[in-house]
């Protein structure tokens, strides 16, 4: 059949006959139509063999034409395992088969099917590990054969994102029940989100036949769509898969490249039912498909599914489908009914009128053919699962099969629902659903069209009551439902190949063997045999497996149950889960100035900070030059990222007293004091300075990476202590620079006239408030880098103007900006620790010589008791300064300090100091290695050991004269 040879309109609901599309399959150019799926376009071109099965490489054609099986998996250039019956055809698309050796039509690996006897379920568990060491030989061979498709490692990621969607009512499934429910709810004022997996609305109304005349489905669909599509309260998502149900009706819905996170107040699942295959020999041969698949091909794509057909059915719907096929010009050779007669007697007459022979109480025992169906072997059913010896062969190229329907129970079971099966009537029921979750339509066992519609509106009525949009819910009368499931559509064959699970090539005997190995529980059978683990997730295999296990273990299907359904409902891409990446970053007010000055930026938590100014290849030179400038002239660093907390109120000093190790009650206004914080375990967790600007106002700094945590700690503790204090995190509100170097006072003096900047008027550790370049500023005299220096904190809106003013004022003094890495070198020369670089999750104050920062007379601070306990124990390690001659191998942070054959510590900081002409660093070592002058063995890159010398800190300006100028 060529692309032009489609069935006449109005068949072909989805295709545009005026929009031909050219594409390639396995290198052969073909033509399809806009609206086609890849599979429908291939079938329209007479291409029935679409894939090879996973294990035996059997030829496979379409089964469901609804994305419910793995038979249509194909390879796209940038994506393997694409469902050809769901993937829209695109112009110029290149499609290939996958999982074959040679060609799709002549797959050399198909020979494996002849050895299936030797490859029973679980054979690999027992076969490849003996004798010892054999697994290493088998593994590469198995890995080569395992898996489907080929990954494109040069794949360019596409934009995916997520969005929340809020609604009163989510209706999942836009078949007759879903449409009816959506309409009823929307008419009553509810905002409805209608979610449909397929690209069209109406569900079975679009392709199934509901009466002998074949009129009702189409008419009803038109009526419902006219009302639904124009309804202001209904939002429709087509081509959208609700992939799970989570508590409180949190529904992930995938549509295109977007994952909607639906938050619904109420939810109606009208997801329908899966047409079920019959299990007989060669039931997987191309040309054998579900009856619904053939109807979809005709009605949705105007593709004639075969020339001569046989229908195998377990319910009356097969008769109606036979009428569809007949009308589509397919010669219906026979209808084989597994039952003794249909429920609706007129159906037999309707078929006989059209010359269609009916075989009752019979089944197809075997499908015949190599790569496509050629004939079927029909037998009378003599007992459950058994057939009479007399065989009738009917030539055909199409076999439509339907054993009945299984509800699409997956979402409902994820919600906690229990699926029950009545062995007598072969009918399913669902119970135990959570509040606010309704079911409607065939998923709840309603198959009569009038019942389905009624069920939809009744479900809406219950949802409306819960939403407060109705005062009572309705429950109508329902017509009696005819049975739709044939109770035992499984016919084992002595030669096997009656497939229970198409994905995993599992035959009847594979399931039975699992039970013979002692796996009675269906969950264990699943894990042993892998039944239901393939892409179709048991949609067609769960019920026959339950039936087989039940029979083999002498239980009912209800007692056996089905395997657990977990999210996701269909395979989802990691890109959907990841969505659009949100990676927040923070920039200071001077950020652009740093870029303009050629800064090499580095991350500091979420902040972006200048590491140094210059090219990365000249890092060391830049740092040394910047250091020299600070030591000899004046430099400026952006310290806006430093944490800033305003602590205000009558109890401000008391709060700090409890939080930090030092004492703050008597701290004078206008002075700052070092602040060290320990946790309840006595571990050092942060430091900063507390600047007292008023009796009741402290400005507390914290480390860049620690401030958010410290702020939370303050709020937490204060919530317990109930002190009269206000704590505000003003980190982002203040831009700040540290102006440092011997000339810093002179630079500042050109811009600041309302503060006495003299050494006496504004001494070391003093704090002031004034104006710098007309900008209100907090000024702190600090000595982190060991030179005369001023931290200038201003409102962030003025940050860049402050930077500009200081750079301009500093020109006369040859001012130069310096970066974070330079600052780390400067402070290293002063022997100042950086919390979290030179400390870890175990560091106590004594280990880093911070005992001086502890006010022992205080009755309490967080960690006091632990600090005292630790101090009573012998020290286990000590942070020391060390030096190495210039030219030595330079230790890196993390390199190990040795003591004989043992590790006694590690390097935390290390740089070459041009100021000192040697390599300097900080390292943990054993206490008996910590005496200045001792040799400290450090294992450096390549395993060599260098002998550093322990040095008394600080390395530079030991009398602190320069910072106190």
């Amino acid at each position, binding site marked *: 059949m060529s692309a032009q040879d489609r069935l006449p309109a109005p068949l072909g609901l989805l295709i545009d006959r005026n929009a031909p599309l050219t594409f390639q399959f396995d290198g052969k150019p073909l033509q399809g139509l806009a609206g086609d799926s890849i599979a429908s376009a291939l079938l329209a071109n007479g291409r029935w063999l679409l894939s090879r099965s996973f294990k035996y490489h059997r030829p496979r054609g379409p089964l469901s034409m609804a994305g419910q099986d793995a038979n249509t998996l194909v390879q796209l250039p940038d994506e393997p395992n694409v469902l050809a019956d769901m993937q829209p055809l695109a112009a110029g698309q290149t499609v290939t088969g996958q999982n074959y050796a040679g060609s799709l039509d002549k797959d050399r690996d198909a020979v494996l099917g002849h050895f299936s006897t030797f490859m029973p379920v679980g054979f690999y568990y027992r076969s490849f590990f003996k004798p010892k060491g054999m697994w290493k030989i088998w593994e590469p061979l198995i890995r080569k054969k395992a898996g489907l498709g080929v990954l494109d490692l040069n794949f360019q990621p596409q934009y995916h994102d997520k969005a929340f969607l809020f609604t009163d009512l989510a209706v999942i499934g836009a078949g007759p029940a879903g449409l009816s429910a959506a309409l009823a709810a929307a008419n009553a004022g509810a905002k409805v989100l209608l979610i449909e997996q397929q690209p069209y609305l109406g569900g079975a109304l679009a392709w199934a036949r509901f009466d002998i005349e074949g009129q009702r489905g189409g008419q009803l669909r038109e009526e419902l769509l006219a009302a639904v599509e124009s309804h202001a309260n209904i939002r429709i998502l087509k081509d959208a898969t609700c992939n799970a149900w989570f508590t409180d009706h949190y529904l992930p819905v995938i549509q295109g490249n977007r994952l909607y996170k639906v938050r619904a107040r109420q939810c109606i699942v009208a997801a329908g039912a899966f047409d079920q295959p019959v299990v007989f020999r060669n039931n997987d041969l191309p040309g054998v498909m579900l009856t619904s698949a053939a109807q979809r091909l005709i009605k949705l794509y105007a593709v004639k599914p075969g020339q001569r057909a046989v229908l195998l059915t377990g319910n009356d719907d097969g008769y109606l489908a036979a009428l569809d096929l007949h009308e589509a010009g397919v010669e219906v050779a026979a209808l084989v009914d597994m039952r003794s007669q249909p429920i609706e007697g007129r159906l037999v007459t309707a078929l006989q009128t059209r010359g269609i022979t009916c075989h009752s109480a019979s089944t197809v025992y075997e499908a015949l053919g190599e790569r496509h169906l050629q004939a079927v072997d029909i037998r009378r059913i003599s007992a459950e699962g058994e057939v009479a010896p007399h065989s009738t062969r009917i030539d055909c190229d199409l076999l439509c099969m339907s054993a009945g329907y299984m509800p699409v129970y997956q979402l409902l079971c994820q919600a906690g629902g229990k699926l029950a099966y009545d062995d007598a009537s072969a009918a399913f029921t669902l119970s135990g659903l959570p509040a606010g979750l309704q079911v409607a339509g065939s998923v709840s066992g309603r198959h009569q069209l009038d019942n389905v519609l009624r069920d939809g509106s009744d479900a809406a009525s219950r949802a409306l009551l819960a939403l407060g949009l109705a005062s009572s819910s309705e429950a109508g009368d329902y017509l009696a439902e005819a049975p739709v499931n044939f109770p035992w559509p499984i016919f084992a064959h002595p030669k096997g190949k009656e497939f229970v699970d198409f994905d995993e090539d599992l035959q009847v005997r594979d399931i039975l063997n699992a039970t013979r190995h002692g796996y009675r529980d269906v969950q264990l059978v699943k894990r042993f045999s892998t039944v239901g683990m393939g892409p179709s997730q048991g949609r067609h295999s769960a019920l026959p497996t339950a039936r087989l296990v039940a029979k083999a273990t002498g239980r009912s299907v209800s007692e056996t149950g089905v395997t657990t359904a977990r999210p996701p409902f269909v395979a989802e891409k990691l890109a959907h889960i990841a969505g659009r990446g949100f990676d927040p970053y923070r920039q200071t007010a001077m950020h652009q100035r740093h870029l303009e000055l050629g800064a090499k930026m580095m991350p500091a938590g979420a902040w972006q900070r200048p590491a140094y100014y210059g090219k990365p290849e000249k890092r060391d030179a830049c740092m040394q030059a910047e250091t020299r400038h600070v030591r000899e002239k004046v430099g400026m660093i952006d310290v806006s990222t430093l944490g800033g907390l305003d602590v205000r109120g009558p109890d401000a000093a008391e709060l700090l007293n409890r939080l930090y190790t030092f004492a703050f009650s008597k701290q004078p206004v206008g002075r700052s004091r070092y602040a060290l914080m320990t946790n309840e375990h006595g571990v050092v967790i942060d430091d900063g300075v507390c600047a007292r600007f008023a009796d009741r106002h402290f400005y507390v700094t914290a480390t860049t990476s620690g401030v958010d945590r410290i702020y939370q700690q303050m709020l937490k503790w204060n919530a317990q202590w109930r002190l009269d204090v206000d704590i505000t995190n003003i980190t*982002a509100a203040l831009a700040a620079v540290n102006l440092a170097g011997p000339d810093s006072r002179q630079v500042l003096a050109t811009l600041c006239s309302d503060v006495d900047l003299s050494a006496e008027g504004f001494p070391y550790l003093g704090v002031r408030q004034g104006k710098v370049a007309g900008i209100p500023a907090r000024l702190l005299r600090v000595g982190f880098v060991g030179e005369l220096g001023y931290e200038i904190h201003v409102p*962030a809106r003025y940050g860049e103007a402050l930077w500009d003013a200081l750079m301009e004022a500093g020109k006369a003094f040859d001012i130069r900006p310096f970066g974070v890495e330079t600052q780390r070198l400067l402070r290293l020369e002063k022997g100042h620790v950086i919390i979290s670089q030179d400390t870890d999750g175990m560091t106590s104050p004594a280990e880093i010589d911070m005992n001086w920062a502890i006010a022992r007379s205080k009755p309490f601070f967080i960690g006091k008791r632990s600090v005292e306990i630790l101090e009573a124990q012998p020290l286990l390690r000590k942070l020391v300064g060390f030096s190495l001659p210039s030219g030595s191998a330079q230790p890196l942070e993390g390199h190990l300090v040795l003591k004989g054959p043992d590790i006694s510590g590690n390097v935390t900081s290390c740089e070459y100091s041009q100021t000192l002409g040697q390599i300097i660093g900080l390292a943990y070592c054993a206490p008996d290695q910590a005496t200045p002058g001792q040799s400290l063995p450090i294992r450096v890159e390549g395993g060599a050991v260098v002998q550093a010398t322990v040095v008394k800190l600080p390395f530079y300006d030991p009398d602190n004269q320069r910072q106190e100028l």
Partner: protein
Amino acid sequence: MSLHAEHFSERSPLYRLHQDAQLNALGDSCIVSNYGAGDERARAAHCGLLDLSNLARVGFRGAASAAYLEARGYQLPAVPNQALSQADGSQVLRMSQAEYLLLGSLQDTGARVRQEELAWQFDDTPNYLLPRQDSHAWLLLSGTCQAEVMAKLCGVDLRAEAFPVGSVAQTSAARINVIIANLPLGELPCLHILCDRASADYFWGALLDAMQEFGGQPVGLDALR
């Protein structure tokens, strides 16, 4: 001479993103009046984004804050997470039992609220000033698509029926903390979004990205008038 943001010492964290825009003075700083391309008024009505970071805003917190603000002529929302428009166009957002956020009015270019920040004195009364103009950037998302745009960034239902005029949400959007207030300007639907000032560049980009499918773009102040 045309205005340039660097003529002012007060600068929005986003001013470099408006390099080609026409600016207008706004108090001691400036604001984009238009970008000079297309119908910005129509864009604002559909999906527009305006940087209001230079418009005055300030917060007060403490047991005495309510009395302090009432004494200065402000009407206060009765409950937290509500906003109340003042006669002069400024807004008072109640952030908690004892915290208020004042948003300046475009009518007086934020002068009144700016004065509140300058007038406040630290004393013994429990009424602490919060420097919201410096801690937060202020973005205005306008138009009929605002709720759908925000649904791509934020888990709070911001549709008009769930988040009516005067509502305030303190939540997270695009993984940073934000304050969102539904405060239309006349007939124009507007969500006022206050985010960490240091994250403004990031959040502006995240918003524009979310607006793209709706054809949303930045707009100037002229589009709101």
